[in-house]
């Protein structure tokens, strides 16, 4: 994928070029939104809003990491969503089963390569991590999601949330410590390597 050429075409209004970029980044942006918001539907809405906003403001992109620039749009969309959520709290959007019960793990999100047991364990671990992420202040959560889950480097994270490098370092260190403390409460779910470290402490 010739990203710079696609960006230039998209900046001239070429929707196909932009959609190629969307297809390339949609999983990353959705996952970022999902980990910040902790809700699939809200995350999907935020990702869609982010791509719309990105297309409309594409000419404000002046080079640098396009991934970081896109993550800024999705981070802003998530903040908007959180503000909306704060104003109008909603019920969880987990899909219901035929009996009317909420499904813990929607079928369309399951990994088909895992056995049911392994899938259940993975789901539980994921829930535990998401629970701990949700417990973080949003500015800490955003930094740790961008750096550790999306693999952005410090300068990209700084560009994505428009904060100085020192702030990124500080927030990331504190977020990791808080996550570590929170995850200790789910010791039985954690991989053996993680448990060993905790026991040594």
């Amino acid at each position, binding site marked *: 994928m010739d990203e710079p050429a696609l960006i230039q075409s*998209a*900046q*001239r*209004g070429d*929707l196909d070029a*932009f*959609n190629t970029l*969307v*297809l390339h980044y*949609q*999983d*990353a*942006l*959705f*996952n970022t939104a*999902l*980990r910040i918001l902790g809700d*699939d539907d809200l995350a*999907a809405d935020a*990702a*869609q809003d982010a*791509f*719309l906003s990105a*297309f*409309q*403001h*594409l*000419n404000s992109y002046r080079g640098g990491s396009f991934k970081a620039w896109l993550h800024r749009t999705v981070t802003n969309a998530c903040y908007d969503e959180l503000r909306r959520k704060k104003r109008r709290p909603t019920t969880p959007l987990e899909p219901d089963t035929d009996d009317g019960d909420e499904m813990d793990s929607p079928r*369309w*999100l399951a*990994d088909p390569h895992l056995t049911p047991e392994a899938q259940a364990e*993975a789901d539980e671990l*994921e829930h535990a*991590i998401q629970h701990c992420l949700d417990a973080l202040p949003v500015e800490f959560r955003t930094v*740790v999601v961008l*750096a*550790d*889950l999306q*693999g952005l*480097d*410090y300068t990209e994270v700084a560009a994505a949330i428009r904060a100085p490098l020192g702030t990124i*370092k*500080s927030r*990331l*260190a*504190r977020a*990791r*410590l808080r*996550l*570590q403390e929170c*995850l200790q409460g789910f010791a039985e779910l*954690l*991989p053996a*390597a*993680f448990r060993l*470290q*905790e026991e*040594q*402490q």
Partner: protein
Amino acid sequence: MNPRDLELLSAYLDGQLNPSDSARLESRIASDSSLRTALDNLRATRNLLRQLPSRRAPRNFTLTPQMASIKPPTPRIVPVFRLATVLATFLFIITFVINGLISLSASSFAAAPAPFAAGAAAPISAAQEAAPAPTSAPAATQAPALPLAAIAPTETPMPFGGGLAPTITETSTPEITLKSVAPQVENTQPIHSQSESSVPVDFEIFFGALAIGFGITAWILPRNNERNLRKKWNKK
């Protein structure tokens, strides 16, 4: 662990410390088991987060032309035209204000020109009266020469007759007077012409036209671009 050490360990884990800080921290880690444990825990937490499965997007987020809120991107040249419009408007206002001030001052000159005009006219008439004197009547030139003659003879004797030298000297005096008056007379002319010709009316019109032209272009371009793009999208 203090926050500073935590921050150092976290940055060290990501390879974000400079070589000297990194070396210093490594020597501390080697001698301090609590720092080593803290680093291992941070690493384990980071690894756990990195292992979190990446979900696939539940649907494609590609944009369709029919999406109601889509607004095509503004062409890059539009901000340039907007800036040019602002600048041309600013220059137009400046020239407009300057013109207003100049015409105001010109009208106040026109209301009270008498003292200056009289003062300027007086030397001309005096000079004109004095100028023909040496050619028409040499005797008459001697009369104004008297003050000079009264000084000159005491220093230089006049072998060719006392009348000649003073006459030359004297006839030059009115000429000097004329020259010294002439610029003043010339200066009086632009006062009227400045209010008419040197006022940059052309500039005013030019800047006004530019402002309108750039403004219209900045307004039309995005709309034209949007219309063309929508036509293109609708064809697909």
